[in-house]
């Protein structure tokens, strides 16, 4: 089966049709999606700025991570759940939208970035927790994350418009 057939099949599911054609589900779900965005990306940006070395400099990195990361994860859960429903409402539109494909790729890349941070960089946090200048790998994770999340917002907005 071709991938397009799978999206077509999703698109024809009664659940998908209802999400798409009823007046209320889409706006309500999208509202949750945007609020979840404020909570997760809003917190993630602060984490990234700390990793880059811009804000909260007097706070050790490990404290910022341990205190902000749980909220970033909660916000992400809201976004992922509401986003899955938004996707189910319009599988075919998402399949054909270049912006949605880019968004999906960038989401996978942020996942890899988080994995890289927690498996390769963060285990040695004690070496640079209070350092005035952080190792380039740490800064890189911060820059990549900010860049990808703003890219995801742009691509997401574009999917809605065109």
């Amino acid at each position, binding site marked *: 089966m071709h991938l397009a057939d799978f999206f077509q099949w999703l698109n024809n599911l009664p659940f998908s049709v209802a999400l798409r054609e009823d007046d209320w589900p889409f706006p309500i779900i999208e509202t949750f999606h*945007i609020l979840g965005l404020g909570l997760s990306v809003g*917190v993630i940006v*602060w984490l990234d700025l700390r990793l880059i070395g811009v804000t909260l400099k007097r706070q050790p990195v490990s404290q910022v991570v341990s*205190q902000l990361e749980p909220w970033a994860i909660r916000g992400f859960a809201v976004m992922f759940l509401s986003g899955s429903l938004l996707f189910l409402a319009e599988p075919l539109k998402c399949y054909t939208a270049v912006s949605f494909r880019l968004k999906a790729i960038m989401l996978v890349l942020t996942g890899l970035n988080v994995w890289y941070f927690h498996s390769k960089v963060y285990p040695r946090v004690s070496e640079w927790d209070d350092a005035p200048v952080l190792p380039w790998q740490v800064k890189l994770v911060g820059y990549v994350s900010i860049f990808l999340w703003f890219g995801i917002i742009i691509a997401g907005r574009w999917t809605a418009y065109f």
Partner: protein
Amino acid sequence: MNFQYLLPFWFFHWCEGTGLGSMIQQSKWSFAVIETIHIMALAVLLGSFLIVDLRLFGLGMKKLTVAEVATQFGVTSWVSFIVMVATGIPMYLSEAVRLSTSSPFFYKMVFLCLALLFHLTVHRRATKSGGAGTGLAKIAASLSLVCWLAVALAGRAIAFL
């Protein structure tokens, strides 16, 4: 309720006739670009308010005092607030006539005024006095979150209602 009852009709037409308003109307991309920047600033703004309000509740960032958290996040949240206003005004100018009959837009502005007023008075007092988990701190934090979420919800509703 909407702004049609409060302002003369020529005002909305004048807004759309301004150079900025008509430029955005005639351009295919500019509204989308401006709204995208508006939403990015929203993410940063809601995130920093959330962090400060959680701190007031006694959750997260506990190694810093309430006042320190408020100062650290305060400066940057005003920067994103300015970005939101600076992108919000051109969007308004481009569709002032449609928004004159939009009640979500009216309530968004009401909640925005309430949120700002509250932020500069009770909320500021709560973050300056420094206690977390006190009655004042909890009331200030919950009302702040409710007000700003109401602004965001009403804003989202403009597009749908």
